[in-house]
């Protein structure tokens, strides 16, 4: 982490608290074992809600009913927040679309059969999906904060329309008296109504569960973790975001329809930004990392707010303090608290039985053990080795130019990479290596010049399309799906590249998991498949990134300083790994590298950049002998450089 981040962290009031929290932390193994308990709690909760009419007084049943449809709203929002990492501040607009669809037709008798609330309820998913698709085109233009603020604006626009279009919606008075059907009368058959809401919510929850567990859900999590890496796994991020947005809108609209059927009315005040904010708060308080967290949050919200309003007129202050504390100190929320308590219980029980739970840490990888036995690169470089001349040119760039503002970073640079070769790009600091690399991999669009990949013109083509054409890449600063396991890092790349991850139901195709495992084995990470990427050592992370770049079925591998920031022994491992895999898979490798030992040790051909232009190109021997290259590097030390 960078200096400022450390500085910032050290200033915060958190260290003392987090130290305290660490003492309270249960071991990971205990958490894993507590998962089962968490499932039991979850199912218990569902059963409790389902059976509520049998034992609870009517006031609690009514609260439960509201908790159910607000919970569904929060859960559908969590599809964005937790699954794909989009924070929407306007989710209540879908609540409004669904709600008004059910209510408006009923109020307008002229609508004939379209006034049947239950029939219109059946159409709520459709209106949710269609409206989300249209709105998605606007709001998905923004990312992160801009997305949040755009959804806020869009939600307010929809609210303002519902507020102002009184002839249709009834404005602030709303549309009232929407009694869905006799058998759902809130007084004659209050329990029927409850169970109707419960069943609809249950079905929706099950569907959302399936979607979250699908290959699509995996790809979404990958996008959440690392958008850029996802693009280089062949994922067309916008398409996935749009799909997730549409799904969330679909279920949000169903929640709105259920709300109208439950309350028999809807008014514009119910779909404003506060409703959206409260849905987010439900996700947070309940624990948005947990599937049923939003429901836990909704239950908490309804009951506690109700209680608070009876106890104090300062309810909003107290509620704000609760939100503040959860957001600052316990992001895992209620579900996380339950999980933690269960983990402690597990630890306690095991301890009684004399078993101590100790976490294994991925400290030293198998790859590192191997590395010890490898011959040194230097000695290898000294030995004459056979250089490949390669086959057809597979990656050809001509006269690429790219400038940022007034600064010309790459100026008419060209490269021709032949099939099966190891092609290094070197150059002094500021030579434009990384920019050149980003142009080759589609991250930047060139101002002029052309790029051909295996004969096809790919100038200005988006990275995810290049990836589908057989290009894989790693980054100078390791780029992984950090909180996903090493196995998932590889698996998602393998599945995404041929659009397997577009399936929103079902599982990954058979054999994929095994293949991903094999690939991990090949890079020496087989025993760490279950660890999350962030837990691995830096060297292992580099290996994992290379595995991810290969997993997309790549024929051309572009590696940006594969040995940056790793120890000499890890460097040897990494280089050996690259060479071995390139041979096995008949890959073409293009790499930027500072470490001249590595460059001259493995490159078949070298392109030297200086000031954005190609200074020289040739075999290692030619480059070594080139006086201009020597001049360009004069005064430059080979190591300790920080980026191009």
């Amino acid at each position: 982490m960078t200096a400022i981040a450390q500085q910032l962290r050290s200033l915060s009031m958190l260290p003392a608290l987090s130290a305290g929290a660490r003492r309270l932390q249960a071991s990971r193994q205990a958490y894993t074992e507590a998962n089962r308990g968490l499932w039991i709690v979850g199912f218990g909760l569902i059963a409790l809600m389902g059976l509520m009419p049998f034992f609870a007084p009517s006031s609690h049943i009514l609260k439960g009913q509201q908790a159910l449809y607000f919970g569904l709203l929060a859960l559908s929002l969590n599809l964005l927040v937790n699954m794909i990492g989009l924070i929407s501040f306007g989710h209540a607009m879908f609540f409004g679309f669904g709600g008004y669809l059910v209510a408006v037709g009923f109020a307008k008798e002229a609508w004939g059969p379209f006034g049947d609330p239950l029939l219109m309820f059946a159409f709520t998913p459709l209106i949710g999906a269609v409206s989300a698709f249209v709105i998605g085109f606007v709001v998905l233009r923004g990312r992160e904060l801009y997305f949040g603020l755009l959804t806020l604006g869009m939600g307010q626009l929809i609210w303002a329309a519902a507020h102002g279009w009184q002839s249709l919606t009834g404005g602030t008075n709303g549309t009232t008296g929407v009694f869905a059907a006799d058998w759902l009368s809130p007084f004659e058959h209050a329990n029927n109504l409850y169970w109707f809401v419960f069943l609809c919510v249950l079905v929706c929850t099950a569907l959302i569960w399936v979607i979250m567990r699908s290959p699509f859900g995996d790809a979404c999590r990958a996008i959440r973790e690392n958008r850029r890496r996802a693009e280089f796994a062949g994922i067309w991020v916008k398409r996935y975001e749009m799909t997730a947005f549409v799904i969330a809108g679909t279920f949000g609209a169903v929640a709105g329809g259920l709300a109208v059927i439950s309350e028999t009315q809807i008014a514009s005040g119910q779909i404003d930004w506060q409703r959206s904010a409260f849905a987010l708060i439900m996700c947070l308080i309940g624990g948005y990392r947990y599937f049923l967290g939003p429901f836990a949050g909704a239950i908490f919200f309804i009951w506690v707010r109700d209680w608070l309003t009876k106890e104090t007129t300062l309810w909003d202050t107290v509620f704000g303090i609760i939100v503040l504390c959860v957001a600052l100190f316990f992001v895992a929320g209620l579900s996380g608290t339950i999980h933690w308590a269960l983990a402690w219980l597990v630890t306690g029980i095991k301890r009684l039985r004399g078993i101590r739970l100790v976490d294994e840490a991925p400290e030293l990888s198998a790859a590192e053990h191997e590395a010890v036995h490898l011959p040194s690169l230097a000695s290898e470089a000294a030995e004459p080795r056979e250089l490949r001349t390669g086959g057809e040119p597979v990656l050809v760039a001509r006269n690429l130019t790219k400038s940022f503002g007034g600064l010309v970073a790459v100026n008419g640079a060209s490269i021709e990479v032949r099939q099966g070769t190891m092609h290094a790009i070197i150059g002094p600091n500021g030579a434009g290596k990384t920019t050149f690399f980003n142009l080759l991999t589609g991250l930047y669009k060139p101002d002029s010049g052309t790029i051909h990949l295996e004969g096809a013109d790919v100038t200005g083509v988006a990275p995810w399309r290049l990836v589908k054409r057989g290009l894989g890449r790693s980054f100078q600063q390791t780029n992984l799906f950090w909180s996903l396991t090493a196995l998932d890092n590889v698996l998602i790349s393998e599945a995404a590249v041929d659009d397997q991850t577009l399936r929103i139901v079902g599982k990954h195709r058979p054999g994929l998991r095994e293949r991903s495992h094999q690939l991990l084995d090949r890079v020496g990470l087989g025993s760490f498949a279950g660890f999350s990427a962030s837990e691995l050592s830096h060297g292992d992370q580099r290996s994992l990134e290379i595995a991810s770049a290969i997993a997309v079925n790549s024929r051309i591998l572009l590696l940006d300083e594969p040995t940056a920031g790793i120890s000499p022994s890890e460097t040897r491992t990494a280089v050996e790994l690259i060479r071995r895999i390139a041979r096995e898979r008949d890959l073409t490798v293009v790499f930027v590298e500072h470490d001249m030992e590595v460059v001259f040790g493995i490159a078949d051909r070298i392109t030297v950049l200086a000031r954005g232009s190609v200074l020289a190109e040739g075999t290692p021997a030619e480059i070594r002998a080139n006086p201009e290259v020597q001049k360009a590097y004069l005064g430059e030390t080979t190591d300790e450089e920080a980026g191009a």
Partner: protein
Amino acid sequence: MNIFAAEDLAAVIGRAIAPDAVNAAKAYVDTLNQSGGMGGCNVVLDVVEETFGDVPACLRAYRDAIQSKKYDVFFGPTNSACMFALPELTTAAGYPVLSGIAADHQPYLENFGKGGKYAFHPSVSTFMEGRAAARFAAENGWKKVGIVAPNYAYGQDAAKSFREYFLKLVPDGEIVTEQFPEFDEDNFTPFINQIAESEPDGVFSAYFGPFIVPFWKQWKAAGLEQIPTIGGLIVLATFEVAQTSPGDIPANSYGYDRAPWQLLEQTPVGQIQTEAARAANPDSAPIVSSFAYQMLNAISMTKAFVEQTGAADPEAWKALVEQGQFAFDGAYQFAPTPVNPLTHMGDNCAAVGLVGSDDTLPVPVTYDPSTFLMSCMDDVLTQEEAAQLVDRDASEITQEALDAYQANVDAARTAREGKWNGTPATPPS
């Protein structure tokens, strides 16, 4: 006799409106219980927090109360949207509902069959305010009138009521502009520009209490003092904002009020209720909130229903009202308050008066009592119009019932003849 109401006791506007009214109502219930309650039954008035304008939470409170089967009668909430939805719920459940504190937009009973059947309106507020103001405008010779009203249910309904009645009274009149700023708007200047451009003789504003003050301030700053305005100066001791800026109010300003205490304390029932309200809210005394009278009137109506039918059965109440002779001892009239068999609306009144100052009151900005024009429903609503207000078959009501109602109305008119500073009691045209 158990009465349930959910009122907004803590939120932004409700907190200013509801507590005084609820205190007064509870004090009056105690007074009643000491003298035998309602038809011999002890009365219990339960008021719960309706939760801050959150309509589902408000409706849930009512449904909860309905399903507990503990209550016989329901009074309406402070929240307009919740009140709007409520009658359909209570009627479906078979309970009577009486509009409670502030929100009663039901005069436009477009859904009588669904919700209006068991809804009774002891003190019709919005509708009467609009009509009283329109009558005032007409009697002062306004032809071109501008309207500025907050863009939510109350403002829209008040504007609609004013517009309809004004154009009826002044056939060659014209509404030259209608502006609907947001309820919490604090910059009225762009709207005032539009009104000034249309050069009206006078302006009707449905902003009330503290919310009218920014409008008046900016009206004065725009140099439009010579054009009279009618605003909703509902007097509440809690509306402290008026205290800060009496000088900002333009000279030609009138205020309408759904229940001015200076007038209501003069009626026989009003006297008793006013005393109870003042005792319950010593800080506000002598001011009694207009909202308090609404709630008190609802109690009076309930009492009469119970005593005359001997039950809390909405069907019996409906039948009683629709026979026409039903009247109750309310604060708005010097005789029993007639209840219209067509609309279920009590014959209540609203006034318009010149805004003046009185330093002896907790809130120095008030009405000049000598200028009040008090309009009761029988002054501003003919039976033909009343029949059109409701989407029901007027033939359900017999001619005898209508005659009986008219007899009650005549009695009430005679009783208030010459009262209230000699306010003219001209019959509606």
